[in-house]
């Protein structure tokens, strides 16, 4: 599973982001892109020592400043289920035959030879 598919699936979910300078930001993920730039809403920010707090309505975080993101545990199963569903949907939409593979059965029908 790609890290970015997990992140996109985490939209509207709460998460904890630690930056490279040790600051942490707790909030709801609003949006993200392929650089892992993200916007959070209803954010609690703490300084690296964890002794000072700020409340932010919304903030934008440049992806390159992020150390890691902590996301809800149940997101993993949600993304796996979703991937299985789309895989199965693709399978059944492509042809959807359930018979013995491709090609005609060998021999038998001698009408072909007449």
């Amino acid at each position, binding site marked *: *599973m*790609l*890290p*970015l*598919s997990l992140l996109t699936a985490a939209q509207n979910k709460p998460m904890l982001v630690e930056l490279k300078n040790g600051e942490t930001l707790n909030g709801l993920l609003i949006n993200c892109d392929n650089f892992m730039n993200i916007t959070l809403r209803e954010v609690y920010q703490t300084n690296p020592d964890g002794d000072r707090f700020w409340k932010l309505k919304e903030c934008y975080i440049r992806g390159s400043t992020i150390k*890691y*993101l902590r*996301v809800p545990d149940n997101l993993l199963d949600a993304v796996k289920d979703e991937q299985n569903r789309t895989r199965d949907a693709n399978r059944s939409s492509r042809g959807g035959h359930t018979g013995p593979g491709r090609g005609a059965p060998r021999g038998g029908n001698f009408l072909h030879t007449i």
Partner: protein
Amino acid sequence: MSLQGYTDRRVLLVLQDGRAIVGVLVGFDQKSNIVLSDCKERVYSADEGVEEIPLGLYLVKGEMVCLIGEIDEAIDSSADLSTIRAEPIPPIRYG
């Protein structure tokens, strides 16, 4: 060269800030961004046993990764973390 062989295995991840995290590798990409499930941080100390702190599901930026190694379950489960004393790994310093 790929992390593919490590997927769904328990691995040790050492970060540039010196943290050691164990967890199951469930995903990665070309930039070595890492998804770990059931993460626990192992906090080493010279005068106390190793403390394990549960962290849950983590997405770690590739730039922060120093090392990823597969854990030998047999050895790891037979080790008594509370008896292990070790200095923590210092963070990487630049310049």
